[in-house]
């Protein structure tokens, strides 16, 4: 079972183009003899084809990864910070911090009758 785990990792790496020639040769030799691993490779390929189609590139060589541009990342970080601050301000206005009511309202009062 541990051997299958190893070869599944190798299949993943091969499809990402990260294996050396010697490793690819070893994997090909194993796939020729192992129906379980060759089936897993076919499944992996089908999943990747589906992902590439959904990304709008059916002829891709590898799975297209979403590219986040630095400007977009900065914008989203700023939006998150502003939303957090606004939420905190609204919550403080609504419920206050510990001991939210004005201190004078909690202090003793003497009324002469």
């Amino acid at each position, binding site marked *: 079972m541990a051997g299958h785990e190893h070869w599944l990792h190798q299949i993943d790496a091969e499809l990402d183009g990260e294996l050396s020639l010697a490793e690819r040769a070893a994997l090909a030799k194993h796939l020729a003899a192992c129906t379980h691993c060759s089936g897993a490779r076919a499944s992996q390929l089908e999943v990747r084809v589906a992902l590439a189609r959904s990304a709008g590139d059916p002829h891709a060589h590898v799975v297209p990864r979403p590219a986040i541009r630095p400007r977009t990342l900065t914008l989203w970080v700023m939006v998150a910070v502003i939303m957090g601050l606004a939420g905190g301000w609204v919550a403080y206005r609504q419920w206050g911090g*510990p*001991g939210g009511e004005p*201190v*004078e*309202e*909690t*202090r*003793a*009062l*003497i*009324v*002469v*009758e």
Partner: protein
Amino acid sequence: MRSLWSSSALAAVVIAGLLQGPGTRLTYRVRVLERTGAADSARVLGSGSVSGSLDTGLRLSLRGDSVEVEALLQITPVGDTVSLGAEFFTRRLLARSRRGLPLWEQDSYHRVVRMGWADTARIHPFGRTRDPDARAIWLELALERNFAGGAARPAEELQLSDSLHDFRVEAVLRPRRARVTLNLVRGDTVSGPRPMDLLPQGPSRIVRLVLGRRATSLDVRLTRPQPPRALRDRVLALESDVVCLRVSAPNAPADQSIGVICGSLNNVARRLPLPTGDTLSATFAWPGPR
């Protein structure tokens, strides 16, 4: 007619003077009430009174599960009225820490109101509630003054009809005199008691105590303790009935004392070892009425 008017005026001045003088006994009467829901219905949770000379103060405390209010009330007569001053010290349970321990918020502040002797002061210890039908607790305080022939010892009374709230009243009075009883102790042998009335911050006195066949002379002087460092102790004058006995050898310089014994006027013996190997035992108590 003019003579009658002037006699009446003189009598009024004399009576007023007697009521303001040292023979006047002041009584604070306090009731704790709780509104039970309907507009004017309230039930008494407890009541108490404290009396003493005109400079007697009232220390009251009202404690619940999540809030504690302590106050020191004192009056200053101003003509036919009285100025009621109150020092409050409150603690509220704010939250619990991550370890489950209580986190308290404490506050201290001062209130002053002017009232007549016949008036009743209503004290809202937790502030006034906005909702008129909400469950609320308040205290009613009334003052009385009567002529008393020299009875100086403070007195306290307390009746509780509800155990949910811890309510206490205490008299606060700085003693003008203190009854000090001295003994000399060595092993199982104790000298005869040597009682005396001493004035705080008064002159020192030479005391001669005989234990066995040996006489020991000591220079004793009654003083007041240093003001407490803790805010609560200072605000509530918790050291008001504490006196200190400074003991030194006769004719010793003022800054060289054998030791100081401090304690409340509660008849508890306190001990001070002497350089001679004996132990001086001092007991402080309120003096008897004069």
